[in-house]
């Protein structure tokens, strides 16, 4: 499943790149991209575990940049 999420207060380009790398490392994630300009996260992950993976995504993003929130 491929889904897109809006990100609020993604203020630093380097953080976006770091988030992307961190998300790609999560088990079950097929592809992930964080766009600093469109402020969007595109996530492609296994269907059956999507919600679980999404929780993990939120967690790693908070670790990189606590000010940024993902609109679920």
């Amino acid at each position, binding site marked *: 499943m491929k889904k*897109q999420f809006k990100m609020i207060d993604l*203020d*630093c*380009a*380097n953080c976006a*790149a*770091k988030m*992307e*790398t961190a998300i790609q490392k999560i088990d079950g994630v097929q592809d992930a*991209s964080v*766009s*600093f*300009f*469109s*402020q*969007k996260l*595109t996530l492609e992950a296994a269907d059956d575990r999507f919600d679980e993976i999404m929780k993990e995504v939120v967690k790693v993003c908070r*670790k*990189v940049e*606590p000010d940024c929130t993902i609109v679920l």
Partner: protein
Amino acid sequence: MNRKQKKMLLRIIAAAALFTVALCIPAEGFLRLLLFLAPFALVGWDVLWRAVRNIAHGQIFDENFLMALATVGAFFLGEYPEGVAVMLFYQIGELFQSYAVGRSRKSIASLMDIRPDYANIEVNGELKQVDPNEIAVGDTIVVKPGEKVPLDGVVLDGVSALNTSALTGESLPRDVQPGDNVISGCINQSGLLRIRVNRVFGESTVSKILDLVENSSSKKAKSENFITKFARYYTPVVVIFAALLALLPPLFLGGGWGDWVQRALIFLVISCPCALVISVPLSFFGGIGGASKCGILVKGSNYLEALAQTELIVFDKTGTLTHGTFRVTAIHPDDISESQLLEFAALAEHYSDHPISLSLKAAYGQPLDAARVTDSEELAGRGVRAVVDGVTVYAGNDKLMKEIGAAWRDCHHTGTIVHVAVGSRYAGHIVISDEIKADAADAVRALKKQGIRKTVMLTGDSKAVGEQVAQQLGLDAVYTQLLPADKVEQVEKLLQEKTPRGKLAFVGDGINDAPVLSRADIGIAMGALGSDAAIEAADVVLMDDSPSKIAVAMKISQKTLRIVRQNIVFALGVKLLVLLLGALGMANMWEAVFADVGVSVIAILNAMRALKTKNIINN
């Protein structure tokens, strides 16, 4: 400026004022520290706070931490003014950067300003504005002059001119009348239109285009990936060098710790790769935005990058280089007049819907009197036989002429030839052929000038027709009589011919050539307005059907890559230079701050040039 930025601006102004005061008061010792700490805390508390918090999260080489370390370090060395100044300038730079990014986001968003906000429907004789998402297929909507067409549909009544420039880059308005298809995103210029919707909003052209452009940034170019990878190593390496610089020389060479620690702090200030991380994707984003302004949709930065490396261009013929519609191009009567010959042919073909019959009737241009045709019969693979004004007329190919024993002549024109015999006497022939697009020859020339090594045309058409078109357009090679599967095979062969770095682009109209579009390095679909298959299969979509847009797309790609290279060289160059000078003790903190945020801002401004495409179209 948004609220957050305004708040930051106030903080910077207040801190700058306090800083000036501190510089003017001749205080000593603890009082002096306090005087400088006040503006420092005011302008930099959030950086310090984020630094502490991110370390708790395990983010060591974080921009905030490095800046905090550099400025706090300056305070420990007793360089109070320097510590405050560095933080102040860092925040000014960050503010400017955030403002510039905001501006560029906005100007790109305004390019995409084709999303309709509402649709008008008639309820009890009154117009009501509703969300386009609520409209179903088969509903009737009303579009007033000056409004955007919100959904795809067919005009029920009303005549108007539509401005399609936001979609195609074409400035000439398109006239529509009842029965015509209209696509969403166009602006209705002159008359009131009543439209029956034939696609829901989510599937309408405007949604598809927006989707495509918004998703384009997720397919990254090689240089973007390079920068991301580079950024991952750059910061740790610079920080390690900083540590070595602070420790080794004082230990082994002796001398003051303060001087070397200060040099190390300069390293920390320059250790953020922000200028590159922001400006490279922004350039691609701008390039894609600029291209869509010209009616060229690029599905990803990787394709924009690849366009500049195109070596071979393979064209489909029908619908790409030619209009794909048949027209009468020559009439050669034997002993009757041209109009008589055409009249006979049109009448004979009166009951047929074959594209050739249609083009004959279109060329005749006058209403036909059906009563003059009494008996008509289609002869499969040969033509038609009909009784016109009581005389038997045959219209068809040479086989038919042989069959009836008419003394037919061949023609020196290439195209489809319709022979006409009245009774059993040969009356002459009409040549029907596909027309080459007006800008096709220019397009091929422009591509050659752009450095394309070889242009190739593939067609399912006959050898004679294919070769004639190829010769007229100045193409390097032509392969004819190909079935769709043969086209894939031919492209596979051509892929072997290119150099390792070069790319092969295939240009088609999206009909029957989806497999080839996806097999080529870059699949370009043209005239794709409304054709879903083409938008799906292609990597680059030309919204109108002029082949000259391919050269424009290549130019935009080359310009974008030039900007990317400039930014990489400039940002890295300045950083390395300041690092070197810093290590030698010849640079101060101020220069380091410039190498960090100053370079970022300049790189962002340069990246924004990728959006401007006016010069490219005019040349």
